[in-house]
């Protein structure tokens, strides 16, 4: 590299580096440091080392300064489970639709892609409250079902895990759809024909050719949905009620109402580590599946 090129590279990379540093690394570092500090009496932090934040979560609390509460781990795991369920349901819903859309004539497909992104034009909160209105005992869903005589008592969906999953799936559907669509759309259709030609039943073609070849889209969609789904606190807040507490809500509480920033930071670090762990395992698996003969 000549001197000139080096200067150019430096100038080109500087804005990116500064951007990443300011908006990513500094907040992350702050959280990491805070998670090891003593909570102040009335919020804020005191600058002394304090590992009980993690002790409260994982169980080495002394019972005096801080108390170990298994509920935190429980909530963490529940959040992971909820995110995984969201990913799975989104995948199952989006996959056939993406396949169908990829086969449409260009103008219909443009229309469909536009429709998929349409919800982004309205506020998330407003859309979730719309679901609230749909699901509540006197809401549209129950009115219709009772009117049709399908049920006699209103369904008690609101403020249950079902409502939370419903809301999560609703929110994250487009994020799953777009990467899936991109990968299915570039799938060479003659491979599907070749598989059928060689005697594979449609199910076999799906399992042996179509799914393996769209792994990149599945992984991309899964990751894009999983990460924000783990930390999401708005959906449980609006549709989950008091029992539906998730990690996101917990962290939000620590930072806002409880004003225990170090503990909130510790929770955030733990969930981040868990997500990273899950992603690593997942991507390793996917790579191996992709590299199999």
């Amino acid at each position: 590299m000549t001197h000139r090129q080096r200067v150019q590279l430096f100038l080109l990379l500087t804005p990116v580096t500064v951007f990443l540093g300011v908006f990513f690394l500094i907040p992350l570092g702050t959280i990491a440091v805070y998670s090891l500090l003593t909570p102040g009496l009335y919020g804020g932090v005191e600058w002394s080392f304090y590992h009980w934040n993690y002790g409260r979560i994982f169980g080495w609390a002394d019972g005096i300064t801080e108390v170990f509460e298994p509920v935190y781990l429980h909530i963490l795991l529940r959040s992971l489970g909820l995110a995984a369920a969201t990913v799975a349901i989104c995948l199952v819903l989006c996959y056939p639709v993406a396949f169908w859309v990829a086969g449409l004539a260009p103008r219909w497909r443009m229309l469909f892609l536009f429709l998929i992104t349409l919800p982004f034009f309205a506020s998330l909160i407003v859309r979730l409250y719309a679901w609230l209105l749909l699901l509540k005992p006197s809401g549209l869903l129950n009115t219709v079902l009772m009117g049709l005589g399908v049920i006699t008592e209103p369904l008690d969906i609101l403020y249950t895990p079902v409502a939370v999953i419903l809301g999560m799936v609703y929110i994250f559907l487009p994020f799953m759809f777009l990467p899936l669509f991109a990968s299915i759309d570039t799938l060479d259709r003659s491979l599907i024909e070749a598989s059928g030609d060689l005697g594979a039943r449609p199910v076999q073609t799906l399992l042996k050719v179509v799914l393996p070849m769209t792994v990149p889209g599945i992984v991309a969609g899964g990751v894009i949905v999983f990460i924000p789904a783990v930390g999401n606190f708005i959906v449980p807040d609006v549709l989950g009620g008091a029992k539906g507490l998730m990690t996101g809500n917990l962290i939000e509480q620590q930072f806002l109402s409880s004003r225990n920033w170090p503990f909130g930071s510790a929770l955030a670090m733990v969930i981040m580590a868990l997500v990273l762990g899950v992603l690593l395992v997942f991507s390793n698996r996917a790579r191996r599946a992709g590299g199999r003969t």
Partner: protein
Amino acid sequence: MPGPLLEIRAARRSFTTPEGRDFAALDGIDLRVEDGEFVTLLGPSGCGKTTLLRAIAGFEQIDDGVIRLDGADIGPLPPHRRPVNTVFQSYALFPHMSVARNVGYALEVRGVARKSREAAVTEALAKVGLAQFGARRPAQLSGGQRQRVALARAIVAQPRLLLLDEPLSALDRNLRQQMQIELKDLQNRLGIAFVFVTHDQEEALTMSDRIVVMRAGRIEQAGPPREIFRAPKSRFVAEFIGETNLLPAVVRATVGGMAELSLEGGQVLHARADSLRPGAKVVAVLRPTDLAPAEQGLAGIVRRVIYLGADLHLRVEPEGGGGEIGVILRDAGRVPAQGERIVLGYDPARVHVMEAGA
């Protein structure tokens, strides 16, 4: 006597153009393929070759007509239930599988046990000369090797009929000629009937037992290569199969199986032909390779001389006028000069006469 392996009758398939018109890609196709036969579909781009092949494989439904295989109507069967395999133009190898798994795929999906599957794969790969390549990925092969893998994959389950859609068109000229011979050999050894699509007339002549010339969704002429080449039924076929001279003429007289034709410029051409009516308007088909300098024949002036190594191409203007005549001389003793007078001899048996307007 058993019926044909494949029998297609009055097959029709229309598509709707973007402008909303109906357009017949197959416009009443009748075709029979016997067991073990090598049939080539030949025709210009867009004449419906691929559509016909896809209809046989089951990727395309015909609107009308029947397709029978071994006497049974296969029209309602989906592709995976037809004992027919295809070699795709793009090869369509599965990129995420090894060569061996690609080749064994047809057996894998039929639930054939691993042991016998591996044996069959090894055998099929050996047949196409790729015994050492089983562990590779398709992406790690050359175009010619991919072609062979596609072939091995299509024959491993021993189909009754193999469909090949321009399988050689992506290869360069040398490899292509080599593959033509190999493919024909393979077909002989396997005894599987091939329906082979090409728009290369040389390829069709080299490989086929029978050539089916298609034009705009119809079959223009079907027959053995020699017949298609020597006795085309129409101007279209004559022009499509190799270079040719089409000379408009009028029948003057017929005597004992010989016809005397009068060309536009007034010269006389003799042809061995029966059942020609004096006074009829005809077109004489004369291959450039069937003309050579001689004592007697068509006289003309050499207008152009093109030297092509083994061949010498001449353009000759007949005396009395009436279009130029192309001549190809293999190993010419003396190279005629431009502007020289030349007399072109021919064998009347090699002059093919067809009706004008055909």
